[in-house]
């Protein structure tokens, strides 16, 4: 039976041809040279990339324009429990829709983006800044409200399509609320008008009794 011609060493030569092609290829074009020297050259992160959360504020006042209403939904849902919120109370102890303390502990945050999904007010979004190297755990890696708050324009800067979509449905939300308010108002006015009308109707026939009924 005809044994196939066995040339020991041929397979190794074919393998060396592949490495040679890669070595020469690496001098022509980036297909075979895919590393970049990091701090100087940087890869542009794709839009969806998520690293650590940040709070969005509208307008230019980081304190007042904050969208967050301290509903603490994200604190409850966060799997590693790294968010800590202390809502603001006005003088007579009633909750105002604003957090006094909003801390995120970057030591344990795994950027899983669940807080963004559960936030009903589109107030917490994922940033794509990842250079947070620091020397201490708690002083510099626990971000407070002031470090977290970033403007909506910054949000448009890093995630244009997502930001416009968010603005669109916020706008729609506002309109819906405005219409609802308008409708409620109209209904209220209509009810008052009706109440005034029947009060007036009651008044005209029996002139004697006073309007105790309103």
């Amino acid at each position, binding site marked *: 039976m005809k044994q196939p011609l066995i040339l020991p060493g041929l397979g190794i030569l074919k393998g060396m041809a592949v490495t040679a092609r890669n070595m020469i290829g690496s001098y022509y074009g980036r297909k075979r040279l895919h590393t970049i020297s990091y701090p100087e050259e940087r890869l542009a992160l794709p839009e969806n990339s998520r690293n650590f959360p940040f709070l969005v504020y509208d307008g230019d006042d980081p304190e007042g324009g904050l969208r967050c209403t301290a509903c603490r939904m994200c604190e409850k849902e966060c799997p590693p429990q790294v968010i*800590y919120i*202390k*809502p603001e109370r006005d003088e007579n102890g009633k909750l105002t829709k604003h957090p006094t303390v909003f*801390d995120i*502990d970057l*030591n344990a945050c795994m950027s899983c983006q669940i807080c963004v999904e559960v936030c009903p007010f589109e107030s917490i979004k994922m940033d794509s800044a990842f250079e947070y190297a620091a020397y201490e*755990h*708690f002083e510099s890696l*626990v971000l407070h409200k002031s470090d977290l708050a970033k403007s909506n324009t910054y949000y448009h800067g890093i995630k244009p399509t997502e930001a416009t979509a968010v603005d669109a449905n916020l706008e729609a939300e506002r309109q819906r609320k405005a219409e609802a308010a308008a409708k409620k108002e109209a209904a209220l006015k209509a009810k008052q008008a009706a109440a005034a009308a029947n009060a007036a109707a009651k008044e005209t026939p029996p002139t004697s009794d006073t309007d105790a009924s309103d």
Partner: protein
Amino acid sequence: MKTKANSKPEQMLPLGDIKVQIMAALPGAACEIVPNPGPSGQDSLRVEPASVLAVARFLRDDERHLFDYCSNVTGVDWLDQTVSETVKVAGTDAAGQATELEEKVERVVPGYLEAVYHLYSVAKKTGPLVLRVRTGNRSDDVEIPSLTPLWRSCEFQEREIFDLYGIRFSGHPDLRRLLMWDTFEGHPMRKDYQSPDETLAFATANGKEDV
């Protein structure tokens, strides 16, 4: 996009028939069907520890089943449940006659540890047969026969159950702790397990004071 209409693989016999066949083949075996209320429709077959080896060997070697692959072995810890149910008690009602009286009685159902085996047949490509084996209680009588002699794949999984739940598998060739170090006491995955010392874990950043 064509959906290949090739032969649908052999469907597994419904659990009821399998139970009948087992009872026929092994008269002494004591097993009952545990229905699964969820939509997944995977009912399970509970077998007494005494006859589990015989039933398992039958399921593996019988021509009609050939469950030659034990995919998954899971330990489950069922705590003691206090079940309150209304029970008919003979008593005298307000008018003095002996009549049936509705009375709420607290009854404690003793908890148990359980090993759940998911068996598949590679030869006949049939779906999971869920086999449940329960221990007597959660403290001293935690011995059930190991199925490693029948399916080698249970070896590490049974060691893990012994490590995390404390079920002792008799007949297991090498029963040691799988994940914990050997001098570890206690079985961490039990529902009533207290981790030894909370202060070891370093304090979190914002030290949980009350709001």
